[in-house]
């Protein structure tokens, strides 16, 4: 089996991740921050060690500025509902995931003005065009660090500088880039960074979080027990407690910590170089083939470890099924929860086939996938081919 769906969730995880979860459940099973006994302290220590590791990874001086959530979507909802008020103008890009677009479209119904800056057919943004939209009093810019469909990396540092120049804040969706590209929050000028734990950070599903810049007050989306300030019925206003109501997913956070520490040991730069090599190999192999359209930028430096493509004569779901059943290659097909991005690439509503590479993939796996796609493309050129016909549905 070849797993090329790391952009959906990374697999396999480093063995230390499952070990840390087991260890937490067996040995540090108290409720963090709620009691003073040893198991509660042990659980709190697990959470704080992960918080420190995350802070180190993103070069965050003060770990208190990191709050844990259940995933990047949750983190983005906290940021968007916390920072946007009716009457505000918000600017975003046309390659956003629904984790950004759905909250924004909902906020639009409450009197928020949402402006979408179109990206080109490769998913790249024109920063000058973005600046025009920001110049007329936008309160917030929200942008993905890299498209989950085409892999296109957006110039977040430049975009943040432009936003700051016009008095807007920037929220960055790092779902695809946390752990796969170096992120230095202060150097990039990021106000809020939303990350997921289960992709590039190697944690389990159900983990994620957000970084909130020092000095920026982000009101909570959820209020409740925090284990702190217990005499008061009003939510604490200090980080991270302000954004962490209810008992955290301690087992998951234990696993996330092990994943991040693995990543720090290996080095994010090494991960990026490895994924870039695989991506380049894949793009070159697929582009050389007849009947294959590869989306996203030609320059491998301009994309993260994602390759989206389509096969002439076969739908993405047919290709995905054949890759899985005939070749044991696991990819993601369809719209990838990002209809806006597919419209930008010109692949809506059909979608694409997406390979998402990870640290544990090899060049030999990429070569095997290229051979498999070549075979499927040749089947697709024969309209009577039984393999494709079997995969088709009739109305």
């Amino acid at each position, binding site marked *: 089996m070849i797993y090329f769906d790391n952009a959906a969730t990374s697999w396999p995880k480093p063995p230390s991740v499952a070990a840390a979860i087991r260890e937490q459940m067996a040995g540090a099973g108290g409720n*963090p*921050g*709620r*009691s*003073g*006994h040893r198991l*509660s*302290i042990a659980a*709190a*220590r697990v*959470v*704080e060690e992960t*918080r*420190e590791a995350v802070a180190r990874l993103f070069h965050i*001086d*003060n*770990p*208190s500025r990191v709050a844990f959530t259940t995933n990047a979507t949750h983190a983005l909802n906290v940021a968007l509902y916390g920072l946007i008020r009716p009457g505000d103008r918000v600017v975003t890009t046309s390659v956003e995931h629904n984790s950004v677009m759905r909250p924004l479209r909902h906020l639009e119904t409450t009197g928020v003005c949402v402006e979408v800056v179109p990206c080109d057919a490769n998913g790249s943004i024109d920063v000058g065009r973005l600046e025009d939209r920001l110049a007329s009093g936008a309160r917030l810019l929200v942008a993905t660090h890299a498209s989950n469909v085409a892999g296109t990396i957006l110039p977040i540092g430049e975009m943040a500088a432009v936003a700051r120049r016009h008095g807007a804040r920037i929220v960055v969706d790092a779902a695809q880039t946390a752990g796969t590209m170096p992120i230095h929050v202060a150097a990039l000028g990021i106000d809020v960074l939303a990350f997921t734990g289960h992709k590039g950070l190697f944690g389990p599903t159900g983990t994620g979080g957000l970084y909130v810049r020092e000095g920026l007050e982000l009101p909570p989306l959820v209020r409740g027990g*925090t*284990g*702190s*300030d*217990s*005499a008061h019925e009003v939510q*604490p206003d*200090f980080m*991270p*407690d302000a954004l962490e109501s209810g008992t955290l997913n301690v087992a998951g956070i234990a696993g996330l910590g092990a994943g991040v520490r693995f990543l720090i040991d290996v080095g994010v730069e090494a991960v990026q170089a490895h994924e870039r090599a695989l991506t380049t190999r894949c793009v070159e192999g697929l582009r050389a083939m007849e009947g294959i359209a590869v989306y996203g930028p030609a320059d491998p430096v301009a994309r993260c470890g994602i390759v989206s493509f389509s096969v002439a004569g076969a739908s993405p779901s047919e290709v995905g099924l054949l890759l899985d059943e005939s070749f044991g290659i696991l990819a993601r097909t369809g719209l990838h929860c990002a209809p806006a991005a597919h419209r930008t690439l010109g692949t809506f509503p059909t979608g694409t086939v997406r390979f998402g590479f990870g640290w544990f993939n090899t060049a030999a796996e990429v070569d095997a996938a290229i051979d498999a796609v070549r075979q499927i493309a040749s089947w697709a050129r024969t309209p009577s081919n039984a393999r494709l016909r079997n995969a088709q549905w009739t109305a």
Partner: protein
Amino acid sequence: MDGLISFFASHHAIRAETVLKRHGHAARLVPGPRELSPNCGVALRFEFARRDEVLPLLAIHRVRIDGVHEYRPRTDGWEAAPR
């Protein structure tokens, strides 16, 4: 350890312990005495005599503290120390 620091949140208590131990100070998390702070379950024991090194260290690392206390056996309990 005759000094005790209380916190608003256990997050800061754990961070304080990490920072102090990393800098070679004695530190131990204990259940917070209820009469001192209702804010969170844990407090940190430390050497009160070294408070002039310990408190700036915590400030540099932006660890938020609630109060600093000294244990004086003759008064039967913890007493708030001048900051």
